[in-house]
């Protein structure tokens, strides 16, 4: 129902602690956008600025074309779901869901009459919702979420998943233009989280509005989002659909953050000869042909030092006859059921993670893939990613943000040491 536009939004705490730097984003109407990033990257702060729970230090936020910087949360036409549910413990579930409705005033047209009782015009006034209207709305929401039978209970009598559903219900009944969710699934256990995730996808089809969803879990981001905004240290790293982010990460951070297990990286040199591009990995010469090779050639990339990334699931097992295969030794293996995660070490001491689907193997073969076994690995060149060695920016993506150094992390590491001295 509304477009959300953030222009040069900044958040500064105190005098010089910058939580969000220069945030520019246009969220289209009815779009599901997910902000994702490690903790402390400013994603929650941005969301809270949209909600009006934090002041906006600089820049403007527009919701539905209206600048909302100075508006109170209640006047912004947003609703929000919190990580710890934030249900009102003293109210029943019904009253919890009805709470925003009881405070709401809706406009009504009142006819203006002259002395003789003739209608001369229409005046717009506001009124509160009747209890009937409230009950209807609440029961409708409860129906959708499957919590009708709990309406008489109090929050403490519900389980985590039910509480979260109530919280979503409370946000739903407002029919707000923008639906904000602040890590709504983080307090749930893994199984429930997966279930709620699919329910959210269902729900999204029913509630046709703009969603902004904050999470630190890239799986949630990948599964739910129309578009993902990936952030680090208060800066947007990349905005794009899940596929774009997965296939063409703008920089090394995005590449490593999206996908699990983490992308493998090699510090190597991208070379070029008459036949095309190639790299040397662990003493093995690997040609970069196909799509990637063409793309590199099209951009006429100079030979240079690069960080090459290959996702674990794109690496496959091979044999010693394959001249481009890298010989490795298995260190630790983790059997995940559908796949097998192998932590392997190459001859040059690099440690890689390989994610092998178990389907093509016999049980006997799987049993042999244990610690100490030597294996040969290979991968298709189309699934490689190249990042500039100095800036860690993808060679194929233009004007991607340079990955910031971890200054904040360094400060945190110093702290325990300082604390110790203070005590002593």
């Amino acid at each position: 129902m509304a477009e959300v536009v953030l222009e040069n939004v900044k958040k500064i705490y105190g005098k010089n602690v910058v939580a969000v730097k220069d945030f520019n984003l246009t969220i289209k109407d009815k779009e599901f956008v997910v902000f994702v990033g490690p903790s402390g990257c400013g994603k929650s702060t941005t969301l809270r600025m949209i909600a009006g729970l934090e002041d906006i230090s600089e820049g403007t936020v527009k919701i539905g074309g209206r600048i909302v910087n100075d508006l109170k949360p209640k006047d912004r036409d947003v609703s929000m779901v919190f990580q710890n549910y934030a249900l009102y413990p003293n109210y029943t579930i019904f009253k919890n869901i009805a709470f925003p409705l009881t405070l709401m005033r809706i406009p009504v047209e009142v006819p203006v009459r002259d002395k003789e009782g003739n209608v001369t015009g229409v005046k717009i006034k506001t009124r509160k919702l009747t209890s009937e209207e409230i009950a209807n709305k609440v029961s409708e929401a409860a129906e959708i979420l499957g919590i009708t039978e709990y309406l008489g209970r109090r929050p403490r009598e519900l389980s985590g998943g039910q509480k979260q559903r109530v919280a979503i219900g409370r946000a739903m009944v407002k029919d707000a233009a923008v639906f904000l969710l602040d890590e709504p699934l983080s307090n749930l256990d893994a199984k429930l989280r997966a279930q709620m995730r699919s329910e959210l996808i269902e729900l999204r089809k029913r509630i046709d509005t703009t969603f902004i969803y904050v999470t630190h879990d890239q799986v949630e981001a990948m599964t739910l989002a129309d578009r993902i905004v990936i952030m680090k240290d208060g800066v947007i790293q990349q905005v794009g659909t899940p596929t774009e982010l997965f296939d063409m990460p703008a920089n090394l951070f995005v590449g490593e953050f999206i996908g699990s297990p983490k992308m493998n990286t090699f510090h190597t040199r991208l070379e070029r000869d008459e036949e095309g591009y190639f790299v040397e990995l662990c003493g093995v010469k690997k040609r970069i042909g196909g799509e990637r090779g063409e793309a590199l050639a099209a951009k006429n990339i100079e030979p240079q030092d690069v960080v090459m990334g290959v996702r674990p699931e794109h690496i496959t097992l091979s044999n010693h006859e394959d001249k481009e295969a890298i010989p490795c030794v298995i260190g630790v293996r983790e059997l995940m059921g559908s796949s097998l995660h192998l932590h392997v070490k190459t001859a040059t001491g690099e440690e890689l993670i390989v994610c092998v689907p178990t389907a093509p193997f016999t049980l006997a073969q799987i049993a042999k893939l244990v610690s100490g076994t030597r294996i040969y690995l290979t991968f298709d060149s189309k699934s490689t990613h190249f990042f500039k060695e100095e800036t860690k920016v993808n060679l194929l993506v233009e004007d991607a943000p340079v990955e910031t150094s971890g200054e904040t992390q360094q400060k945190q590491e110093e702290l325990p040491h300082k604390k110790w001295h203070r005590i002593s």
Partner: protein
Amino acid sequence: MSKRETMELAIGGEMLPMRFLMKYSYQGEKYAAFTPACGADPSDEEGVALTHIVSAETKSKERTRQRLLFRLLTAVTCILCIIPVLCVLLTALVFVLQPDFWWVGMSGMIVAVADLIVLIPVARALARARKDRKEQKRRETAYEVLPGEGNGEVFSEFEIRYRIIEKLSKNEPLSMLEYQRLNIWRKFLYRSKMFFRGIPGWFGRKFKRLGLRLKAFGISIWENIKDIGATFKNGSWKTRVSYFFMGFGNLSHRQVLRGVLFFLFEVIFVGFMVLSGGHWLGKFGTLGTTRLEKVYDPVLDVWVDKHIDNSFKILLYGLLTIFFIAAFVYTWRLNVKQCRILDEITATGKRVKSSKEDIQSLADNEFHKTLLSLPVLGIVMFTVLPIVFMILVGFTSYDFENDGYNNLFTWCGLDNFNRVFAFGSKLSLAFGEILAWTLIWAVVATFSNYFLGMFVAMMINKKGIKIKKFWRTILVMTIAIPQFISLLYVSNLFADNGIVNATLMRWGWIDSPIRFWGNGTLAKVMVLVINIWVGIPYLMLITTGILMNIPADLYESAQIDGANAFQQFCKITMPYMLFVTGPYLLTSFVSNINNFNVIYLLTQGGPEHTAWGEVGGYIAGDTTILITWLFGITTGPEASYKMASVIGTLIFLVVSILSLVVFTIMPSTRREEDYA
């Protein structure tokens, strides 16, 4: 193959080779070479032996010789240093007491001089030996750190020890791990050293912060003044008018409510200043000069006395006027600022907040102003103003005689404080002793209650104790009964003809009544004991709650680690309690310093101590603490308000300094934002 074995094999097959080999290779290389050398040589003065295995034997011989020499020299030097002191003392004694035996004194002096002459070379030798020893040690340690292939991350035992010694000798702070390697005695030494070394820095930081604060304050005032000037220069004519007619700016921007309030305040202020404020303020410097004036009464045709000045009123209303002026200046500044903001808003073409919105925001974003207005007004009028007033009284001659009405009083500088601190006077003696007893009382009362209360709580909480609720209720019930009833009764219980004495006499245990309240020391002990009786139920309640909050798994893990009940108490219960109740202990200490009820209702401060003299007709006694002294002086037959004020101010100083120190030391008091 059993299931368990298979499992182990599976784990072993997958996990062990890499990790274990790394570990063992590391230990094998590093530890084998150095472990023997680390064998403790407890007799070594530094507490750390640093001998390489290769040359251990030869070096230890050399070192033993060196050490012996060093110790011998040290001992000789000590003796040589003590002898002249003794000789001089002896000489002095002889000359004072037995001048006839002057020759003894003279020979003493000669010995002393001779001794000093010998001392010089010995001391030099000692210094050399000491230097050698240090040098030797440094050389040994410096050369023997030789794990050639150390990659910079893994340190050998040897390197670590060397680093510790170096850091200790250079007074550098140790890291956590290094600290943990010290033995208990050294840990203690290190901690106390760091503590005392930290004090100057602590004060330095505090003063620096204070300085920065003051500077920031000064700057902000200067900024304000500049801003006022700038606003006048750049502002619209409406703004300039509101410099004189407050609220004009608001009114002209249709903020009726604010404008009217501003203007009303100005009218009231000006009216007050003209009618009475100026009058009071003018006399504030002298607190009145003419008490009475002959006034001609035309009706009766006589000259009658008319009261002109009342020092008390002048002081009070003068102070009130000053408060009022401060409030006015603040409001005026607010008015100017608002005008500037209004100018800016209209310049950008935005809408100005209406009065209705102002009122609405008082229930929303500005709700704190609504909520705080009355309580803060109450605090300012009934706590801040009176306390400032009473502090000022300490600098005047206000007492029973000079009460401002019958006799004027006036400023007298630090005279009253000088009386308390005049060394050797009766008053200063009394103050010193009462202060000491107050502190003893507060410490003993706080901690005895704390530990005994905790003990009782633990007894009731113990597993296997029945009817817990009953015990708790009985104790809690005693809190409900007003103290004046129970304490007055107990005080009579121990009176000379009270039940205790009467019963003991009936049983024939004593012949004459024990004067519980007549003997100073006994009265003090009784007060402390009865305070325990009063305080235990309360402490029991508090500690029960906290004890139950200690996570049970802490105890379970301690049990598995093999701690017995006493160790569990020392290592888990106590630290947890002290951390959590830290702030409570502080407040309870402060409230014990000001614990009027127990002392006053039990003993009225007696038995009286005539040697201390009276202040304002009140004679302090053995159990008098500062607060009851203050009360006694205020309500005594010749109430000396000025002295009461001095004592009140001193109590405040004692309390605030103590709490400041404790607050900065305690870790658990810095968590305000953790909760907020």
